[in-house]
């Protein structure tokens, strides 16, 4: 049976632990593999922290809408923000071959998420990014 929850958070990193706790609570009675749960946590953290850090020109408070939709086979996570137009699918993969001294500090969060989830779709409507992230349960 499909289930659904919507959570709104402010554009602050300190909102993340509470959000992840709510997401786990929502999924607690379902048969979700630890791999799927990891992919969900990573998608939430990497995508939202990226929006918080780079999505806005001002210092104002913004709301990010997080929707979780669960059916028998998958979780669909939808993130909606009013930041810059940004499609994470267009980002180049980082250079993963460089050694320690040359390796850039960071730049792997979005790449990791893209690799761990099953599908991502971005759209831009009415000045807002909408990102659908699909994660298979098993």
């Amino acid at each position, binding site marked *: 049976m499909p289930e659904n929850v919507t959570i709104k958070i402010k554009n602050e990193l300190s909102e993340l632990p509470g959000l992840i706790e709510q997401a786990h609570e929502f999924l607690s009675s379902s048969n979700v593999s630890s791999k799927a749960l*990891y992919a969900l946590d990573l998608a939430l*953290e990497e995508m939202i*922290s990226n929006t918080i850090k780079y999505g806005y020109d001002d210092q104002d408070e913004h709301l990010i809408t997080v929707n979780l939709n669960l059916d028998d086979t998958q979780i669909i996570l939808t993130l909606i923000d009013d930041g810059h137009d940004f499609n994470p699918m267009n980002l180049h993969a980082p250079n993963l071959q460089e050694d320690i001294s040359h390796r850039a*500090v960071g730049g792997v*969060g979005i*790449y990791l998420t893209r690799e761990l989830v099953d599908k991502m779709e971005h759209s831009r409507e009415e000045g807002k990014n909408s990102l659908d992230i699909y994660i298979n349960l098993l």
Partner: protein
Amino acid sequence: MEITLQEQDGVVALAINGRLDAVSAVDADKEFSKVLDGDKDKLLINLRALDYISSAGLRVLLVVAKRMQQKGGKVALCCMVDNVKEVFEISGFSSIFKIFDSQEECAAFLNG
């Protein structure tokens, strides 16, 4: 997240428990800095009880590796759970670090 520290035969063994994410990375960074500011040059990081690491956590470990390399020391990791191992492999971090299955092998490498 919790970090515990032990020292044996000149090797500092650091165990990270729980989740190393964008929020806990700040505290982890401080704990690692304490060790790196000291004179010890062999650092073992045991990840047996690490359930989750994100790019922010990987960034902390990368900084540790860079600083240890600069001071001519050695750092090695051991005992990753499968989900964490996959993140290291996808991100290319498994080729940056020496990674062992057991703490004993890891310590032997550092003392070798």
